[in-house]
């Protein structure tokens, strides 16, 4: 018992108050003229993490990454990497390497020369360069393409070369800007796992910028969800998905049904929220820490709702509606259910059998129910 607790602490340094962050971003802002791209961000990232910066376009995630690489100077605040203030250190002297969204391979050099470029700049002996380049190309399975030029490679191969080139110098931190953005879906899923494997094997801290929530969920130890230059939430994929801190996070990660309402009852072990959209009040099996009367948003994920034909016995946590749309996705189906108020609620059900016994169909009247622990209440 005690053993597993310590190992959990070691695996999750962010839960350990003693742990020293490897990268410390302190009150960093960046403005371009009147436009504030990054707004007073504080963030600690620990050694060996695979940390994702997730957000829509224009949320400031790439600007933050570029400040870590040294291509942009913060308007305010400081960045420390391994305890060293990076303010006056130019990009070519930072212990970080970056993998660019466009891969940015040197078009006039072969794969081998591309990968060797960084080592050459450091004056590494020729023999050692050749060995290290060969080793890293083997690791990304590009050994037999060493003499090709970038334009003779496919997208997936270029991605591997870019990764090898950024890794070969064994940086303290590897920055990846939309590393899988240019790959098709199948290849992307495969590469996600490869990236995680490589990261675990070499133990370098990865910081990944992505707009793809699935990618962030699959790969990260922790992620920061960004919006309009600020961080909305930092946490593990599970925390961010199951317990979003804000309405934005809830809506950005996965799908969510949001019901606006007010707290009508608040106790230490439960709370009740009343929503005009719903037939019954929402019962939550924990405290919301909000006073009665406070305006809130109650969020229930589509997969956490169940549809049934009979009226539920409980006086809480249900709503009646009519099935209006069904999207069959193979592994699961998504149903749109219109409530009496006109609001459309989304639910999803796993297709466990070829033909379910109680398959829903269009125009069915159903009751949607959910467990008291599956509703998240967010302050408005």
């Amino acid at each position, binding site marked *: 018992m005690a053993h597993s607790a310590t190992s959990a602490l070691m695996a999750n340094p962010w839960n350990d108050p003693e742990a020293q962050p490897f990268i410390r971003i302190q009150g960093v802002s960046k403005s371009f003229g009147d436009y504030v791209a990054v707004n007073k961000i504080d963030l600690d990232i620990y050694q060996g993490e695979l940390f994702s910066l997730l957000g829509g376009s224009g949320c400031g995630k790439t600007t933050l990454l570029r400040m870590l690489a040294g291509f942009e100077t913060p308007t305010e605040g400081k960045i420390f990497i391994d305890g060293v203030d990076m303010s006056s250190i130019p990009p070519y002297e930072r212990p970080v390497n*970056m993998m660019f969204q466009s891969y940015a391979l040197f078009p006039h050099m072969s794969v081998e020369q591309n990968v060797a*470029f*960084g080592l050459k700049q450091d004056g590494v002996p020729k023999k050692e360069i050749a060995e290290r380049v060969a080793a890293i190309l083997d690791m990304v399975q590009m050994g037999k393409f060493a003499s090709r*030029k970038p334009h003779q490679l496919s997208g997936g191969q270029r991605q591997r070369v870019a990764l090898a*080139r950024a890794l070969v110098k064994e940086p303290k931190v590897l920055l990846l800007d939309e590393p899988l953005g240019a790959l098709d879906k199948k290849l992307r899923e495969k590469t996600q796992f490869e990236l995680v494997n490589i990261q675990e094997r070499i133990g370098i801290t990865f910081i990944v910028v992505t707009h793809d929530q699935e990618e962030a969920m699959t790969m990260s130890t922790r992620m920061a969800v960004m919006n309009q230059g600020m961080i909305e939430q930092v946490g593990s994929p599970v925390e961010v998905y199951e317990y979003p801190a804000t309405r934005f996070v809830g809506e950005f990660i996965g799908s969510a049904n949001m019901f606006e309402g007010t707290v009508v009852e608040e106790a230490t072990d439960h709370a009740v929220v009343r929503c005009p959209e719903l037939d019954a009040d929402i019962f939550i099996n924990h405290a919301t820490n909000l006073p009665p009367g406070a305006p809130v948003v109650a969020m229930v994920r589509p997969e956490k709702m169940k549809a049934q034909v009979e009226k539920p016995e409980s006086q809480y946590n249900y709503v009646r509606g009519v099935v209006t749309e069904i999207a069959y996705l193979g592994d699961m189906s998504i149903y749109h259910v219109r409530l009496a108020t006109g609001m459309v609620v989304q639910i999803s059900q796993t297709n466990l059998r070829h033909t379910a016994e109680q398959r829903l169909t269009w125009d069915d009247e159903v009751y949607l129910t959910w467990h008291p622990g599956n509703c998240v209440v967010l302050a408005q």
Partner: protein
Amino acid sequence: MNTGRRSVWLLTAMILGYAFLYGPILSLIVYSFNESRLVTVWGGFSTKWYGELLQNQKLLDAAFLSLKIAALTATGAVVLGTLAALVLVRFGRFRGRTLFSGMVTAPLVMPEVITGLALLLLFVALEQLVGWPSGRSMTTIVLAHVTFTMAFVTVVVQSRLAQMDRSIEEAAMDLGARPFKVFMVITLPMIAPSLIAAWLLAFTLSLDDLVIASFVSGPGSTTLPMVVFSSVRLGVTPEINALATIIVALVAVGILVAARIQHRQDKQREKDMQRAYASE
């Protein structure tokens, strides 16, 4: 019926169009093989004017001088024009950028007479003040030509630089190369095709220029266009036709070779791409 008439109409238009563009050059080539001294009267086939051209020392000297000036001009203009383009594309918004950009490209629209006159006045004033350049010579022509061809180089290189993926240079810097090294080993090789194009453009413009050279040339520095122009004033000789034919032939061969190389590179590239995707 309808299409028949239309194709006849199209064909006529095409022939007239080509005739308008290439008729004069064709007649020039034909008459360079004319036996007669009179340019407008056909006196039978002969290559004697080509022989006489080789004897004409004045014309040959002028041609050699023009080539030398053009090569020096093109080289100088590419260096300065590339620097100007770099400043305009890479240095963001600095004070006086708009003014600089306007000044650099002004020679594109400036009447040559004014450029030539202004440069002549400058050279004269400079000679009186600092004693350099002493007199008008090849040096002054090169300086004048660099001044006006630099604008063309800047425009060509600027557009290439603006298209270039900035992150390639950033990647080089990220991998530890200092800015100057990045420029030498990454930027320069990548913009090389545009530098060659700009060099050729500057070379051609310099070789072709009559107006500005007339203003700033001195005794003993007579360029080919100047010789041709002054001899034409006394009446066109078939020798000039022969010279023009040689130039046309050289240009045509140059274009053909360039087109072939380009075509082969494109083919190779296409093959490489197919191979890359097939091996995925």
